[in-house]
Structure formats: structure tokens, C-alpha cells
């Protein structure tokens, strides 16, 4: 009996899963047609019927229309030190140790480089929303494997994706991953905590608060929860009020 109830609960979970995905959601990296949401440090991402993978120097595209027989359809050589991939609005934002690249998915089998913004040598996850891209750069001083000596958040205007322009730089201590929900930007600043910024005025991100206690590496704003990767596991916040994360639970 117990087993049957469990199975029913699971089935309910699966149904919920589907209904949750069919709803349109307005999170920063919305699931596109039945796919989930990754963090800003991801190197796998799914957009439409394609799995995009960055590894080392290249961007690989896999057609997953038939998951029993997925097929690699292209490899693009991008440059050295490719680290992260983030899909937004028909484009892929790719972070490397020296630049942020924007690839268009007009032809999803052959992503096309549209724009590029070089920056100082550093590790650099990217997220994007509307006409802005947010990048953190982390220096070797702070243990990044990528080199460099700047620790900062850089905001780019991407209204013309062919010419991303840096509009402001905010110094950070030890920035890692980041995430955006509505007009609130969450930046993981390592042991200095989770930094919550109001980005209504993107030229001047305003630090609202800093949430401490853990060593923060990455975040996913996911509807009304903020999922944080921290040293030791995950921490969950309620972000019904985006600018005011309220601690809910941790997994460790």
C-alpha cells in the first residue's frame, strides 16, 4: 500500500513537473519548451531541440530531437579558456577567460558569432536580461584558475549584440556565479556572501544587502525560490520579494 501511495505521489510530482513547465515563467533563464534552468557556471545548456556544450576551446551542438540517438551537428572553435554558457532570447552568451561572446541561434545547428567583448583575463560567468548582460570577473588572487587581477561585476549594454559595450564596473571581493530575477541581481561573492543589487538603473547597480554565513558560488532564481550553490551543498531562499531573500532551508 505504502508503495502504491509513493508511486501516486511520484506520478503527481511528474504531472506537476509538466504543468510547471508548460506555464510561461518570467525567471531570468526561463526553461524553453520543457527544459529546466541551470546556473551561470553551466557548460551544458538546452535550447529548443539542441544541447549546447562548451568545453575547452569549442562550442558543440547536438540535435536531441531523438534522445535515443542524439547527433553532434557542429563544432565551433571559439577560443581558449571557454568556461560558461547561458542562453537568452535566441542567443548564447559564452564566458571565456578573456571575453564574453554572443552567438546567435537563428540557425540552431550552426550558432553564429554576433558580438564579443574582451575583458581582463579572469573567470567570467555571464547572465543576460533585456538589453543588458552581467559578467563577473574573478582574479587568480582569489583562486580562479583563469588568471588576471580584477574582481568585479561588469555590466554590458547589448541592445546591439554585435557591439556589446561596457557601461559600468562594480568592484567585488571574490565574485563567482550570478543570477537575475526581474530587477534584482544576485552575485555570489564567495565568503563575502550573497550580494543583492537593485539594477533598475543598470548604469548604477545599487547594493541593497549582503547575505552572509556561507561561501557562495552560484545561484538560480527559480520562480519564488533562490537556489544557491554554497560550500557544503545548497541553500534555499524565498524570493517572493525579489530584493529581500528570506532563508528557507539548506541541504547540509
Amino acid at each position, binding site marked *: 500500500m505504502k508503495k502504491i501511495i509513493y508511486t501516486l505521489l*511520484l506520478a503527481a*510530482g*511528474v504531472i*506537476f*513537473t*509538466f504543468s*510547471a*513547465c508548460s506555464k510561461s515563467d518570467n525567471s531570468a533563464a526561463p*526553461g524553453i*519548451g*520543457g*527544459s*529546466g*534552468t*541551470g*546556473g551561470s*557556471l*553551466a*557548460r*551544458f*545548456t*538546452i535550447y529548443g531541440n539542441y*544541447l549546447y*556544450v562548451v*568545453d*575547452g576551446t569549442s562550442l*558543440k551542438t*547536438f540535435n*536531441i530531437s531523438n*534522445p*535515443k*540517438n*542524439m547527433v*553532434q551537428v557542429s563544432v565551433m572553435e571559439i577560443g581558449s579558456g571557454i568556461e560558461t554558457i547561458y542562453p537568452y532570447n535566441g542567443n548564447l552568451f559564452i564566458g571565456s577567460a578573456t571575453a564574453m561572446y554572443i552567438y546567435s541561434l537563428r540557425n540552431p545547428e550552426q550558432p553564429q558569432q554576433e558580438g564579443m567583448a574582451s575583458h581582463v583575463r579572469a573567470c567570467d560567468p555571464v547572465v543576460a536580461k533585456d538589453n543588458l548582460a552581467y559578467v563577473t570577473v574573478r582574479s587568480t588572487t582569489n583562486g580562479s*584558475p583563469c588568471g588576471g587581477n580584477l574582481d568585479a561585476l561588469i555590466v554590458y549594454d547589448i541592445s546591439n549584440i554585435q557591439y556589446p559595450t561596457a557601461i559600468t564596473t562594480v568592484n567585488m571581493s571574490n565574485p563567482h556565479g550570478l543570477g537575475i530575477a526581474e530587477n534584482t541581481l544576485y552575485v555570489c561573492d564567495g565568503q563575502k556572501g550573497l550580494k543583492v543589487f537593485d539594477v533598475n538603473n543598470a548604469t548604477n547597480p545599487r547594493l541593497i544587502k549582503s547575505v552572509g554565513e556561507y561561501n557562495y558560488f*552560484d545561484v*538560480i532564481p*527559480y520562480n*519564488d*525560490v533562490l*537556489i*544557491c*550553490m*554554497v*560550500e*557544503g*551543498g*545548497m541553500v*534555499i531562499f*524565498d524570493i517572493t520579494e525579489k530584493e529581500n531573500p528570506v532563508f*528557507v*532551508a539548506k*541541504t*547540509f
Partner: protein
Amino acid sequence: MKKNYILVLAGLAIAFSSCNQANLKRDAVWVPVYKDKTEARVILNLPAQQVRSGGKIYAYGNYIFQLEQNQGIHVYRLDDKKPVPVKFIQVYGAQEIAIKDNLIYTNNFKDIVVLNASNPQEVAVESRIPGAFDMNTFELLPPSKGYFQCIDTTKGMLIGWEKQDNVEAACIY
């Protein structure tokens, strides 16, 4: 990429041995844990486990996921915003995850594998592309800096690290 990594390790090993005594035994050394190639490919459904070396995170429907560095995937269900441990999927070498239509795309070392999670209790391999992924070598390093026993790929696939005392360690980072 892996070759580069081995070269770097070799370089480190040489750099170290040139200014220190060889065969010196040390305490609190990270020692690689290996699995043989066949065993390393096996995907298993296991009970929920504690996070030891947590990796990347992912959200899908009512579930959230965290990689266990080079070991597999922790699965949690969000219950009123609280994560309830569901299970652990053993996928050695796993560093990445993405999900669509109840299919989990991850890496089992250099292979990209698709896992069918339609029945979350019995996640099963749907397909595999051998050698399609270059692993991030930085994530293969021991969990913390210090001396470690150099990786010997002839001993099998690296699946993790454990601390041991009184062992030789020629590598350091």
C-alpha cells in the same frame, strides 16, 4: 586537454621534486580513488546521500539537483520551498547537467549520456555518445590545496580523493 593536465601535473611534480627530497612520506595527503573502466561506466540508482564535494546546480519542474563532483547527481524535491532528498544517481565523472522532457543530459567522464528519468525511482541510460566531452580538468584536482599523489591513469578512472597519512606525494597545487 587531459594531456595538458597530465603535463602540468608532471611539471608540478618535477618542480617539486627538484627542491625537495623524493620518496618523502607525508601525512594528510590527497590520494586518488580509481575505478576500473567498466565499473566507471555503470549508472546506478542509490538512496539519497550527503553532499561531500558539491558541484553545479539545476532546477527542473518541482525538482532541484546538485552534482557531486565526479560522482553523480543529488536529486531533491521542492516541498513548500524546502528541499527534500529524493535520491542519488551514481554517474562517475559527472560535472555537468541539463534536463529536458524528463531526460537528464550529463557527462560520464568524456561520454555525454542521456538518462531517462520518467520514472524517477529507476533512472536508466537512454543513450550515450562516447568521447563527446572534454572534462574540465580544474575540477579533477583534489578538494583542497596541498600535497597530493599524482594521478596515474593506468590505474583506472579517477572518481575522487581521500586523505591518507604516511604516503608519498610528489604533486602539489
